[in-house]
Structures are given as structure tokens and as C-alpha cells.
């Protein structure tokens, strides 16, 4: 025992985020008191972020297989076959806590981390997306967080050179003090050239690549596994600092080194840095790993073994290099100006041994570090069901046009142009559908194939009914991908919840996961990667349950892609699907009546599938001219978005007499799409809908410069656009430019 190191006390154990019974488990496992470095290693491996100890049990229920799935959850990212020998590699991951403490670096390194996960598998990133949730716009910190997070994402992605093509942004008071930054990356690889973390072969060099190790980010993952209280900002030193330039070089060097056949196994150093990456490579390959920290490239002198093992310095990789390839690999890395050091070897001992300055700082059983991590079946209670809202019971003083004007200029619905114009969404010259559509679409190489991607979740629904909310998030991602004409193939989930030690929060997690599983199964839309972020609470109040779904689909011919803008005057506007006027948990109820209540709209998965398959077929056969899915805000918001994108208005019929007009126009029934058809195609489209057993109703026709519902005040499209575009720039204090 080194006398200069702190003595292991119950307080020190608690500071490492380990519960007394978890510490007992360590003592039983190794049969002695851990060293200080070992305690740090356990803390890194056994925190919620790395071990999934509260969620693991329930994640097992997710469907993860399909004939096109090459790699499901458990690796750096999921991999699916997209045909022609190509694979899409993708994942979404949260960087919530760091982004609240230090928004620019927190969000930037979130992007960096997810890009690294993708290129670690041998894929070149071709698109990035993000799902952001901020607190009430009136909260004093919200503006600062929006500005910092957006600049951080832009600063990293733009410099790295990946187009940021889509995402979502929402505001709600329940994210005050705990904003969410969920970053998704999608990469392209040859389907037969995927790289994994699993090490093979004894006595092979373990090589460290990339930037040097500094003291930044120590215990980042442990910080991210605890609630925030007062003084959260003081945790700033646990946030890493990003260097997109180093990441860009690392990308090019890694792809080059892989192409040259030098790599046996590769793992990026993300959460819990060197510890997690080394343990994972060894444990997955049933091998031991011995590290010599004297060889570690360090940014500063005097770093202890503890600090080196727990640093979360960015832009670093660990690889096992093929025998005899060391020199070739080193030459490639030096060309890119990156550090290259042999820091250890694989062994057949199944031990994780760390040496530093002639001392053994850690000697632990490598498989147990991961496998024996605590697994909790935490108590949970089901969220009580809410009543269906009867529209007749609502006291509505607004008018239909007045409510639309308010909704379209409200924080959640207002244009996010101010945000996505800060992201380079055009680099690589493959962005076929730019931000603002239902799904982003990027061309695959020189085409004609494209990938469609969308991020979705409606946290209000999840809070009111986790099961239906979980289903809805998956269904909406599936629908958005369908709405551009693509076949949805697989999804990544980013599960953001509060403190799982509270049974009601745990009940939200369990309910949402069951809903996600049900929808993923029914829609043949398996989960191939994901991330869990718990303890999203500040001063004891949890966020809205937010299981963000990132879906990916393939479009066989980008020239047949559908877009949502009205194309011409005089076309018929149809809605496919059933409109019952479901106002529970709707945006209308929340924004106009200031009430967040009622049961959310149920998702009929069979109907969802039937309707989506019909729409995809209509798009492929060129029978529809514009397509838009109907989601929150209902029919009228969807129609407005189609008008705003084109500048063409619409004449709309009055709702059916037996239906409350507010419920008709703003209700959020699921499984619906609005399409426009030329008069020559109308009969055929109606026939196809009938054959598919999908309800169809005529809403009106396109034309003019205003939206005009029979019997209501017409609204000029340009005036709606002004409202739609104004809110965010004015809120950010930037004027209208």
C-alpha cells in the first residue's frame, strides 16, 4: 500500500458513488481491501452510466434482431445491412449532465463521443443528428444553455466535417436545471469490414492512439450518474474539453490503419476512459490486459495512476495491433501527427493489471469487473392511467385561426432555423433532404440509394402513459422515415429518466421500455444500439420521461423521395388514417388551455403499419406529390407546415358536423399522414387506400396565399411564416437576421 495514497474509508467509498453494499461486493470479489486506484476503477465500471445496473434487467425485453441486423446492442454502435455490400453504423448517446454544467464543451464532446463510437467500428460518419430538451424559456438559464449547446454542437461537428442534418428541440419547465443533449451519428462502412472491441491473441501489443491524457473529465461518468443539487456548476472540472481537429485526424488515421489491416480490436476511450476501454477489450475476448502507465502519453507531468485510469480526455483510442504491424501502424499515426504508444499487452491470465513507477496499482479479475457489476431489480410502480379528455368538457375561448397563430409561434413549434443554420448541414454534398422535413435524407455515396433518419419522442405522452408514450416514440420515428418514402430498418434509443431509486420513476422506465419493445416488434424496427441516462433530477425533481428514438431507414432511389411542401395549386389534400379528435396531452391543450392532462393518444400498431405501408407504396409509385406525417399539433399544424414550406395556401372544408372543430383540427390521433394528389391520380389513390383498408378523408385543395377553413377567418401564409420564424431569433436576442 502506498502511504501517499488516501486511506479507504466509508466516506471515500461514498464519494466514489459506491453504496455500502456495493463496496461489500468488491471486498467479497477480490478478498481484500482495494487500492485507491482499484477503488477508482470499480467506481468507473460500476456506476449507472457504464454498468446499466438499474436498466439492464429491463433492456433484455427489447427486440434486437432482424435479418438485416449485423450487430445489435453491446458494441460501440449498432450495424445494419443496407444492401450493395454496405452497412449503416449508428447510435445515439446523451451528454446531459456535462452540457448543463458547461454547455459548449459538454455538447461538443457529446458529439465527439458519438462520432468516435461510429468510426471505431470502421465506418465513416456521414450524418449527425441531435435531440435537445431545454427548460422553460422564461427560466433564467435557458437562453444561455440554448446558445452554448448549439454553438458547442456546431463547433465540433462543423470542424470535424460531418453534416448535422436533423433533430428536434423542445422546451418544458421540467428540464429546468437538467437539459438534455442526445447526439446521434450515422456512419457508412463496407458490410464485411466492421471492427469490434473483442481482443484476440495473447501477447499482442495494446496501443494507445490519439490525444494525450490530461486531468480533464476525471470521474465524468460518476458525476453523470448522480442527481444535481445546488452548486452543480461547481462540477465543471469533471467536464471534458473537446478538440474536433484531433478527432478529425483520429478518424482519418483510424480508417487508414484499418484499411492497412493493422487492427485486431479497437475501442474508443469514452466514459471512464482507459479503464472502461481496456477492460472491455479484454473481457470480451476472454483475455487479460496488462498496462504500463509509464508509457502513457500524458499532457502534464506528475499524474497518478488513479488520474490516468479515470481521465476522460477526449479523442483517444485503444487498439490491439496485429502481430508485425506495429511499425506500419505507427507510421500512419505519425503522418497524422498523433500520439502512438504501446502501453500494454494482452495476457492469458484474465487479470486486469496496472503498473506505474514500479508498483502494481491494480490487479483485478477482468471479467468480473463487468459481469459482476451490481444488477438491480429496483422496485417500481405503474403510472396511474388518466381519463380520456372529452372535448365537450373543455372551456375554449380561442378561435381556430387564433389558436393556430399562437401554436405556430410557440417555442416548441416555432422554426428552429436559428439553430440548424449554425450547423453545417451540407458538407459531403449528399444532403438530399435538409433540416425542416419529416426525416433527413443523405445520399449513399453516388446514389441512387439514400438513408433516412429521424429523432422522435413526445415526453408529455410518456409522462401520462409510459407504455403508450414508448410506443408512440417508436411509431413516430417509423412514420417520419416512411413519410419520405424510405423503409424503416432499425433504431437506437436514448433513455433519459430521473432517479431510478424512486419507484414511480422506475415505473416510467419500465413502462416506456415495454412500449418501445411492443412497437419495435410489431413494426419490424429492432433496437440495435442505445444509451441510458438516469438521475436526470435537480433538487429532487425529475425530468419528463424522455426515451428519444433515433430511427434509420433506406430509400432505394432518392429521386423518388417525398417532401412535405405543397407542389402546386389545385391539388387535392387527403388525410390517410382515422381522425377521432384526441385532445388528451395535446399541444393544443398544453399551449392554448395551459393544461397537461388526460390520456395520450393510443397507438394502434397494426393500423400504423398498414397506413405506413400504403403511404410508402404511393410514394414509390409516384402517386402523391407531397407527404407529411401528422404528429403533435394535429392536422392544422401539419397543413401549416406544408404551406410554409411552399408558400402555397389551401382551402379547407369545415370539419364533420358531429366533431368538435378544435378536436378535429388539433387532435393528435396517431397513424395519420397528409398527402396531396393531382386530380388525375385521385381516383387511384382512393382505390389503393380502400384496398389497404385505410380510412381516407378529403380535407380540401391547395391554392392561394392563405389557409382558409370554410367559415373561419383566412390566414395569410406569409403572416404565419413571420410568427413561425420570429420567436427563436427574438428570444435569443439576435434580431430577425
Amino acid at each position, binding site marked *: 500500500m502506498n502511504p501517499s495514497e488516501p486511506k479507504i474509508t466509508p466516506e471515500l467509498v461514498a464519494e466514489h458513488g459506491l453504496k455500502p453494499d456495493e463496496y461489500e461486493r468488491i471486498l467479497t470479489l477480490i478478498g481484500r481491501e482495494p487500492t485507491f486506484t482499484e477503488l477508482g476503477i470499480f467506481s468507473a465500471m460500476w456506476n449507472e452510466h457504464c454498468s446499466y445496473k438499474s436498466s439492464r434487467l429491463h433492456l433484455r425485453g427489447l427486440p434486437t434482431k432482424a435479418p438485416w441486423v449485423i450487430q445489435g446492442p453491446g458494441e460501440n454502435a449498432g450495424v445494419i445491412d443496407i444492401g450493395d455490400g454496405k452497412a449503416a453504423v449508428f447510435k445515439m448517446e446523451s451528454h446531459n449532465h456535462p452540457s448543463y454544467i458547461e454547455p459548449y464543451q459538454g455538447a461538443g464532446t457529446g458529439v465527439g463521443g458519438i462520432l468516435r463510437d461510429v468510426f471505431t467500428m470502421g465506418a465513416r460518419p456521414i450524418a449527425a443528428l441531435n435531440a435537445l430538451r431545454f427548460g422553460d424559456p422564461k427560466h433564467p438559464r435557458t437562453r444561455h444553455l440554448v446558445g452554448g449547446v448549439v454553438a458547442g454542437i456546431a463547433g465540433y461537428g462543423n470542424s470535424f466535417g460531418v453534416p448535422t442534418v436533423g433533430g428536434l428541440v423542445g422546451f418544458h419547465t421540467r428540464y429546468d436545471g437538467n437539459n438534455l443533449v442526445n447526439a446521434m451519428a450515422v456512419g457508412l462502412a463496407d458490410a464485411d469490414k466492421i471492427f469490434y472491441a473483442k481482443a484476440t491473441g495473447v501477447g499482442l501489443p495494446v496501443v494507445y492512439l490519439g490525444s494525450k491524457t490530461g486531468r480533464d473529465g476525471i470521474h465524468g461518468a460518476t458525476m453523470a450518474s448522480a442527481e444535481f443539487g445546488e452548486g452543480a456548476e461547481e462540477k465543471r472540472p469533471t467536464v471534458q474539453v473537446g478538440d474536433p*481537429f484531433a478527432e478529425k485526424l483520429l478518424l482519418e488515421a483510424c480508417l487508414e490503419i484499418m484499411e492497412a489491416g493493422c487492427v485486431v480490436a479497437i475501442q474508443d476511450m469514452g466514459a471512464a476512459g482507459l479503464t472502461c476501454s481496456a477492460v472491455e477489450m479484454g473481457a470480451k475476448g476472454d483475455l487479460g490486459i496488462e498496462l504500463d502507465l509509464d508509457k502513457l502519453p500524458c499532457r502534464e507531468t506528475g499524474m497518478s495512476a488513479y488520474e490516468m485510469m479515470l481521465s476522460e480526455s477526449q479523442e483517444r483510442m485503444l487498439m490491439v495491433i496485429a502481430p508485425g504491424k506495429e511499425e506500419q501502424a505507427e507510421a500512419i499515426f505519425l503522418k497524422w501527427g498523433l500520439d502512438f504508444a504501446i502501453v500494454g499487452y494482452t495476457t492469458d491470465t484474465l487479470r486486469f493489471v496496472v503498473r506505474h513507477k514500479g508498483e502494481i496499482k491494480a490487479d483485478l479479475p477482468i471479467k468480473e469487473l463487468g459481469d459482476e457489476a451490481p444488477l438491480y431489480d429496483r422496485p417500481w410502480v405503474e403510472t396511474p392511467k388518466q381519463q380520456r379528455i372529452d372535448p365537450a368538457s373543455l372551456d375554449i375561448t380561442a378561435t381556430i385561426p387564433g389558436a393556430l397563430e399562437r401554436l405556430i409561434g410557440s417555442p416548441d413549434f416555432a422554426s428552429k432555423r436559428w439553430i440548424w443554420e449554425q*450547423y453545417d448541414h451540407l458538407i459531403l454534398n449528399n444532403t438530399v433532404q435538409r433540416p425542416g422535413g419529416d426525416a433527413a435524407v443523405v445520399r449513399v455515396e453516388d446514389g441512387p440509394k439514400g438513408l433516412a433518419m429521424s429523432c422522435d419522442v413526445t415526453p408529455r405522452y410518456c409522462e401520462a402513459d409510459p407504455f403508450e408514450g414508448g410506443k408512440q416514440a417508436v411509431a413516430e420515428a417509423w412514420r417520419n422515415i416512411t413519410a419520405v418514402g424510405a423503409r424503416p430498418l432499425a433504431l437506437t434509443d436514448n433513455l433519459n429518466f430521473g432517479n431510478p431509486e424512486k419507484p414511480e420513476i422506475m415505473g416510467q422506465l419500465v413502462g416506456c421500455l415495454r412500449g418501445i419493445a411492443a412497437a419495435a416488434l410489431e413494426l419490424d424496427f429492432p433496437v440495435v444500439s442505445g444509451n441510458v441516462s438516469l438521475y436526470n433530477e435537480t433538487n429532487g425533481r425529475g425530468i419528463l420521461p424522455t426515451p428519444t428514438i433515433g430511427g434509420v431507414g433506406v430509400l432505394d432511389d432518392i429521386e423518388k423521395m417525398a417532401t412535405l411542401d405543397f407542389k402546386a395549386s389545385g391539388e387535392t389534400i387527403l388525410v390517410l388514417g382515422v381522425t377521432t379528435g384526441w385532445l388528451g396531452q395535446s399541444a393544443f391543450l398544453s399551449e392554448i388551455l395551459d393544461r397537461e392532462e388526460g390520456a395520450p393518444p393510443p397507438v394502434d400498431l397494426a393500423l400504423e403499419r398498414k397506413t405506413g405501408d400504403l403511404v410508402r407504396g404511393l410514394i414509390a409509385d409516384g402517386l402523391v406529390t407531397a407527404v407529411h406525417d401528422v404528429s403533435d399539433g394535429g392536422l392544422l399544424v401539419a397543413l401549416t407546415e406544408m404551406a410554409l414550406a411552399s408558400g402555397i395556401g389551401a382551402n379547407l372544408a369545415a370539419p364533420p358536423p358531429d366533431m368538435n372543430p378544435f378536436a378535429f383540427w388539433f387532435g393528435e390521433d396517431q397513424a395519420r399522414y397528409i398527402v396531396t394528389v393531382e386530380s388525375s391520380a385521385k381516383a387511384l389513390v382512393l382505390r389503393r387506400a380502400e384496398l389497404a383498408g385505410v380510412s381516407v378523408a378529403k380535407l380540401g385543395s391547395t391554392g392561394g396565399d392563405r389557409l382558409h377553413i370554410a367559415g373561419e377567418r383566412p390566414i395569410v401564409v406569409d403572416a404565419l411564416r413571420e410568427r413561425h420564424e420570429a420567436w427563436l431569433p427574438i428570444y435569443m436576442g439576435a434580431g430577425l437576421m
Partner: protein
Amino acid sequence: MKSAVLVFPGSNREGDVARALHMVSGVKPAMVWHADSALPQGTDLVVLPGGFSYGDYLRCGAIAARAPIMDAVRAHAARGGLVLGICNGFQILCESGLLPGVLVRNARLRFICREALLKVERNDTPFTRRYARGAIVRYPVAHGEGNYTADAQTLKRLEDEGRVLFRYVMPDGHRDDAQVLNGAANSIAGIVSEKLNVLGLMPHPENHVDPLVGPTDGRALFESLVGALEKA
């Protein structure tokens, strides 16, 4: 046409411009590493692509301007060879003394990625011969530091000599220096050297060449270069 695209560590639009050159000219350009000291034999056109050379943590383009390959680029320009610098490439050309002035942070201090309307001020240059004089074209911009500035004397000289080749304009075709997207002096988007053989511009013609992904207004710039070099 033999073209060479320089690659600095941190360049990231080299692939986009190489693809555009290949698409329009039918020939793939040579990719030339920053640490090299010579251009390939017979290079007609040198392209400095967009990106964040060396991370651009210092002044944009300042380190790249001192890269080994830049002496060869200066010699090529001095011989009258064609040089095209886009975005970071424009910044590097200014830092290396091949073009006057400097690009500073956008007036609103934010990165901007959007389509911009540009006026082609003259069509008697190797870069614009396939455009009509005064044509209004759409190229996207994607930059955080595209705010062109120079001292009053330099600006006057550029204007007097007709060396402003591309200017940001409003939808009505007129320039409005108070409203220009990045704050550039005289709404300058791109300038040429005295001999008209070196062009630096912030917007990205290479991202508007392919009808499958968007407008094709940038195509004529590359067609102009092909035409100019065929004739020569």
C-alpha cells in the same frame, strides 16, 4: 485539365470539391498533402478546399499559409497559374499574401450555413466565363469567419480595379451592406488577384453542382475553368 486539391490536416471539403471537379471535367484531381513541397508536374489549377486547417485555433488559415506546399502554390500563381481558394482556402490565400485583406468572425458571431444569393460582377475571368455578367446565383455558405475586411485604400483599389468577383445581394439583386449575412465589407463574397488568376471566395460552388442534391448554380464556375484551360 490537371487540377490539384491541397489537403491540410483539418481540411474537410476536399472531397466535395474533388467530386465536383471530377463530375464537371471528367478527370479526378490529384490530392496533394500539405507537407509536400511540389505540385504534380503540369498542374493547371490548384484548389485550396474548405475546412478547419490545423483546427484553425489560431487565426483562420494562418498556419496553413506557412505549410511547405504553399511556396509551390505561390510560384504557380506567380507564373500565372490558376488558383481557387474556397472558404478556408480563401482565408489561407489572404493569410499567405496571395490576396489582400482578411476574413474575420461573422458580424453576429455565429456560424452560418445557408444558401446565399451572389452577383457575378464580371464574366471576363477564367472562373466566370460561363456566367452572364451580373448574373444572380445561389451558392451555400458554411462559415464562422467569412466577414471580409480590408483597409479603406485596399477596398477602393479592389473596387476600382474590378476585382470583386462575387458579391452578396438581396433577393432584389441589390447589395445591402447593412444586412449582409456575415458583415463583409462592400458585401464582398469573393475577390480575384490583379492578374485575375487567383480567386478566393467564401461560398461553396462545389456544393451546388449536382441536381440530385440541390441547385446547380455552381457548376458553371467549374465549367468556366475547364473551358479556360482547354483554350489555353
